[in-house]
């Protein structure tokens, strides 16, 4: 029980901190939004809209800070993230809904692939200590993990798209193919996602491999593994049902968490590939000084990560009785 209460406290505090950060930032670092608002909207939109934007961004208001804060929280409670400055008159929620499916599809798929592949490589690597997988791959992926994601994307574009011409260089689909849900369209979307997905898998797989490998090594030193060997069980059975099953816990928890990070994990890769997901919209928001969209995206991503973390917590508590006892 104590465990649940503490996790709930953490969840609420973090959520509150993120919301408040969002409220304080524009007030702490004033100037940007005000200028953007004046140059872009002066005389073009209704005074009412300007007023609501000013409340959201904390400029020119006669209200006290506390009142503004309460109004801001109230708006969020209704799922109201305000009007996008850059895609006016669209609302921020509408803009986000345009981009979200692309990101979920691309990065979600890539994350699952990286998790499954990386975990398997980690298992086999640790099982055959000193083998090829064990001695070559970990350092290689340590090095790759230090590469900037987006730069790996650039290299992939140069290699597979510009030089070899195998894959399209940018965007989520071709403009010739209509966006109805037809077979050619799905194929086209998949076709466009291969290169960015490959980039994400390549740069993120190292973490899975290393974690799994290191846990496997620790687990393989346990007495029950020796016991299993002594009983003469088949190596495959020992490897998967005895060792991997116990060693995979941190990776599973990491996977649950990374599903939350799906939304933020590949923002820069999307930017490089001009992929119509959240990352590209975030960049556009930065370039357009679209502060309401920026903040909306930040909130969305934070909430997604938070939910994932809580899910990972419950997963741990469910899979590993020791966590429950400790709490």
């Amino acid at each position, binding site marked *: 029980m104590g465990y649940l209460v503490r996790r709930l406290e*953490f969840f609420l505090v973090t959520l509150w901190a993120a919301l408040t950060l969002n409220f304080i930032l524009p007030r702490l670092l004033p100037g940007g939004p005000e200028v953007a608002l004046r140059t872009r909207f002066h005389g073009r939109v209704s005074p009412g809209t300007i007023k609501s934007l000013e409340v959201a961004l904390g400029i020119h208001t006669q209200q006290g800070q506390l009142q503004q804060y309460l109004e801001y929280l109230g708006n969020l409670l209704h799922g109201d993230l305000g009007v996008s400055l850059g895609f006016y008159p669209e609302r921020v929620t509408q803009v986000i809904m345009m981009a979200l499916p692309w990101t979920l599809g691309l990065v979600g798929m890539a994350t699952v692939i990286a998790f499954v592949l990386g975990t398997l490589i980690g298992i086999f690597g640790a099982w055959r200590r000193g083998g090829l997988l064990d001695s070559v791959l970990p350092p290689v992926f340590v*090095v790759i993990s230090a590469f900037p994601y987006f730069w790996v994307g650039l290299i992939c574009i140069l290699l597979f798209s510009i030089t070899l011409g195998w894959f399209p260089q940018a965007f989520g689909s071709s403009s010739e193919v209509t966006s109805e849900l037809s077979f050619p369209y799905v194929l086209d979307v998949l076709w466009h996602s291969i290169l960015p997905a490959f980039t994400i898998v390549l740069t993120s797989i190292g*973490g899975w491999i290393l974690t799994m490998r290191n846990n496997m090594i620790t687990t393989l030193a346990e007495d029950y593994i020796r016991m299993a060997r002594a009983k003469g069980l088949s190596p495959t059975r020992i490897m998967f049902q005895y060792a991997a099953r116990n060693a995979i816990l941190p990776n599973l928890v990491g996977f649950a968490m990374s599903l939350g990070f799906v939304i933020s994990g590949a923002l820069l890769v999307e930017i490089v590939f001009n992929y119509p997901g959240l990352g590209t919209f975030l960049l556009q928001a930065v370039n357009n000084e679209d502060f309401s969209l920026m903040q909306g995206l930040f909130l969305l991503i934070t909430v997604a990560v938070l939910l994932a973390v809580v899910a990972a917590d419950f997963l741990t508590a469910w899979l590993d009785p020791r966590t429950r006892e400790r709490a």
Partner: protein
Amino acid sequence: MGLDVRLVAEQPAIATEAARPERGALHIVAGAMRSNRKALVGGVILAAFVVIAVIPGLLAPYDPHALIFEQTLGPSREHLLGTTGNGQDIFSQLIWGTRESLAIAVVAGLMATVLSLLVGVSAAYLGGLSDHLLSLLTDVFLVIPTLPLMIVVAAYARSGGLAVLIAVIVITGWSYGARQLRSQALSLRNRDFLDAARMRGERTVYVIVFEILPTMTSLIVANFLGAALYAVLAAAGLQFIGLGNPSDMSWGTMLFWAQNNGALNAGSPLWAIVPGLCIAMLGAAFALLNYAFDEITNPALRPKPRRAIEPSIRSSKSAT
């Protein structure tokens, strides 16, 4: 980006139980370089960049800002890496860019480590409500997604330049280390030598700085390496999307200009490749040092010779 850096940086956690008295940080690094090839490679790369950052004027043939050459030239004897779409010498830009990129990594890495130490060790040492609040703060920063936060903060503080860039990286990068350092400091809290210090009536600050910190040197070094790697990648990402100061000379801003001029398609791919390669190498240097460090403090993870097939028995005693 953020997650991956963390997953790799997560490795040192395994080695945190060892709390024996340790030698100085430089000794540890020197010893690591001698005994571990990964550490050697990482150390050499890092040293090379440091030299370049100190004397760029002697190595770079041209003024990196001068727009005086023909545009998008290929590599040649005059221009080792060709010229940019604006007619600058890429090699000279690369050399001069080393300084800022390295400075960001080291300064932001150090500041993040100090912040982690302050929060982590005080939390562990003070205990009780202070520990609860500080840990909560750490967890909050650990979970808030760093890249979007960095982008939002940097976008608001756009005119701030280098100081803002470093501040953003430090604010978003300290929490992971704080949690690690807290758990190690926690394991030290009830050791005899600390009781002895308290018995002598030493002040809390003295106990923390002169009794606790020296026993944690290796974890602190590992933390710095992780934070520096994070800083390299974070700075590159922010500068790449134009949130640094685009008129500064650094690898990240080179990538920004290359991307904005469509370097890949416009026939000057080196403009985009080489600065990224430098970022990758600097990052790899920190990552390799960190990984080697982990192997040194946790012998079970070291690579083994082929013949040692049965992992279960020998892994704990292995001396290689």
